[in-house]
Every structure is written in C-alpha cells, then in structure tokens.
C-alpha cells in the first residue's frame, strides 16, 4: 500500500501537519518516537497560544489526543525512521523496527535532539555521572562536585539547579565569556558554590565505574588541566535530526533542512519539512505548528498534480 503522505515526527509540526492532512482526506501515516517533541519534558509551557500554563506532559497528551481523533490517519509509535530512498511512485522509508513504508509525499518534522560533547568517555559514562537533565538528576549529586558544560541559558540554569544540592559546581564555557541571560549570569556569578571557567574546551571524561573527573584545554595558557567531579551535565544546545534524509535534501551547516518558508518545500520535489528541523530562525512550538500546516497544505497541492507528473 502506498500512503499519500508520511509524516516523520510527532512534535507540534508533525501533529499540525497530520491534522491538516487528515482533514484533506489524504491517506496519512505518522511515524514517530513519541508525541510532544522536545517540549514534552518541559516542566511548564506558558507560551502555547490558548493555554495559560500547561506541563510538557499535558502538551504532549493534547497533541496525541488531537491526532488520534482524526480519521484517515495511521500512527506508528514508537518507531524511528533510519533511511529514506526514492521509489518509482514516491519514497520508501525504512525504520528501526525493520519496517518499510511507501508514500507519494513526505513531510519531515523530526525536530532536534540534545547536542552531545562527542569526546572520549561521554558514551561510556552516560548515566554514570554524565547527565543531560539537571532538573531530573541534580538531587543525585547532593554534596558532590559537578561540572556543567555550556555557558548559554541552559547551562546557567543547570548550574543554579545543581548549586541547590551539590557541594561545588564548575561552569565550563568554551567561549571567552558567558553568553546566557544577563540576570541569570548575575545569580551564577554571585553564587559561592559556582566557579566559572571560561575559554575552556572539555577534552575527555575520566573515571572507572562512575565519573571521577575530566580533562580540559585551558585556552588562556594552552595547558591541559584536570578537575575532579562526580557529575558532568551537558548543556550545549540542540542539533537537527536530519541524518536519515541528508542525501536527498539540502541542509545548512547546522544540519537544518533548507526550506522555502512560503511552502515548506525542500530542495527535493515531494519532500516537505516543518518545525525545528528546518532553517526556521525562531524555534518555537507555535511557529512549528504553523509550519506544519504550511507543509501539509503544500503536500496536498503537490499530490493534486501528482498523477500528472
């Protein structure tokens, strides 16, 4: 069976695209790991238009309920797309469940994921001291020494979260100065527990069974230095989940899919993209939803002419 459109991803962009595709009576399949996108783990969302304040879980549930209320839609979850190929009548997608599905048009909304350090020790010690969620895991490091890598807003907030529990927090920034919100910087700088180490590039995570420390390059004097910590929190932003489709569509340096923002069209006819994964400047849930609508309507128009192609 060939679907009219397959939507890859279940965040606000994917769900918006799904609702609009279904209402256009397109035979639609959504393949996603989960619903809600990156905001599903947010403590609270206070800027989703129409809701004064909802938790990330409620947001995810709301999106899932809305998509499941549609007819003409099939959902495969949890399932991840690992490859996309051209096929005679459109596209073939392959998933991590060893399934393959076919569609005439694709809408890619697979969003982003946390950037990793990609240094020795990171994989080995993930969950054994290397952590990516300070609001989740800060209490584990009560009275211990920890490091936060990243001098942006997320790094600053993680350092503050951790300072409530840890004995000592090192905030490591590879820039010459912190870049996060100035008022939050002020809190960090005034904290007796937090030591800021700027111009430092983390090289390796050390340990035996659990993390015991890390090596970093001090770019001020070009020396490799070592610090003992039991936890390392990584807060260095996000990266686009576009690997599986990079050989078919144009992406920018950040791996974001380049789209025509009027239509959501990518460089490849029949493939549309929306939301965080695109080169959209403002990465916002509301904008992702709007982009998803644009992509779905463009896919619909593309399919109207499909038989003539």
């Amino acid at each position, binding site marked *: 069976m060939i679907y009219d459109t397959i939507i890859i991803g279940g965040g606000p962009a994917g769900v918006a695209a799904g609702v609009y595709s279904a209402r256009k009576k397109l035979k639609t399949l959504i393949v996603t790991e989960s619903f809600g996108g990156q905001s599903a783990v947010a403590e609270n969302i206070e800027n989703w238009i129409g809701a004064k304040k909802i938790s990330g879980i409620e947001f995810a549930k709301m999106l899932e309920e809305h998509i499941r209320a549609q007819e003409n839609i099939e959902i495969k979850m949890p399932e991840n797309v690992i490859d996309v190929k051209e096929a005679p009548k459109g596209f073939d997608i392959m998933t991590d469940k060893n399934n393959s599905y076919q569609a005439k048009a694709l809408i890619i909304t697979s969003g982003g994921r946390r950037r990793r350090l990609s240094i020795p020790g990171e994989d080995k010690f993930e*969950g*054994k001291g290397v952590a990516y969620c300070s609001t*989740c*895991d800060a*209490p584990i490091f009560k009275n211990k020494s920890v490091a936060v890598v990243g001098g942006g807003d997320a790094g600053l907030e993680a350092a503050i979260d951790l300072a409530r529990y840890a004995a000592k927090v090192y905030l490591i920034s590879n820039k010459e100065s912190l870049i996060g919100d100035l008022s939050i910087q002020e809190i960090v700088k005034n904290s007796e527990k937090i030591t800021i180490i700027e111009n430092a590039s983390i090289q390796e995570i050390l340990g035996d069974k659990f993390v015991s420390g890390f090596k970093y390059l001090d770019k001020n004097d070009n020396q490799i230095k070592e610090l003992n910590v039991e936890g390392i929190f990584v807060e260095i932003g996000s990266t686009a989940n576009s690997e599986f489709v990079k050989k078919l569509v144009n992406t920018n340096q950040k791996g974001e899919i380049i789209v025509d923002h009027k239509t959501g069209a990518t460089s490849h006819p029949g493939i549309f993209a929306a939301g965080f994964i695109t080169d959209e400047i403002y990465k916002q849930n509301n904008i992702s939803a709007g982009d998803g609508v644009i992509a779905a309507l463009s896919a619909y128009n593309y399919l109207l002419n499909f038989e003539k192609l």
Partner: protein
Amino acid sequence: MKITIYTTAGCVYCKMAKEFFKRNNISYEEKDISDDNARQEMIDKSNQLGVPVVDIEGQIIVGFDEEAMKKILKL
C-alpha cells in the same frame, strides 16, 4: 507484586512512569532519592546515576521504558 520507583521532584520521565502505573491500576511505592538511603539503594540496584529507576519484583528498568515495563507486567 512489589514495585518501587525511584524519583526526583523535577523529573518528567518519573511522572510519566507513575502515570503509567496509575493508568493501569497498579500500585507502587515511590522513593524520592533526595533521601540519602533511597539514593544509595537506587545506585546499588541499577549501577548508574539517573532517574527514574523502576524495580518490578527485582527486575530493574532504568528510565521510562513503557515497552519494557509492559513486557515484565505482561500487559
């Protein structure tokens, strides 16, 4: 059936795990690992430092893994 879940207050995946049990009408004991004993117990059981950890009759699941929990609970 004895089920223990190790949590922290700010952990969304812990909330998801608890909701999963509630949805399936399964009772569980929650241990907040800001308590020193609970934290050590969690580390000893799971050999790692992340929450949630779910202990279902001695079978340890790290993280919110709905499929793994369903399998053990035969849901």
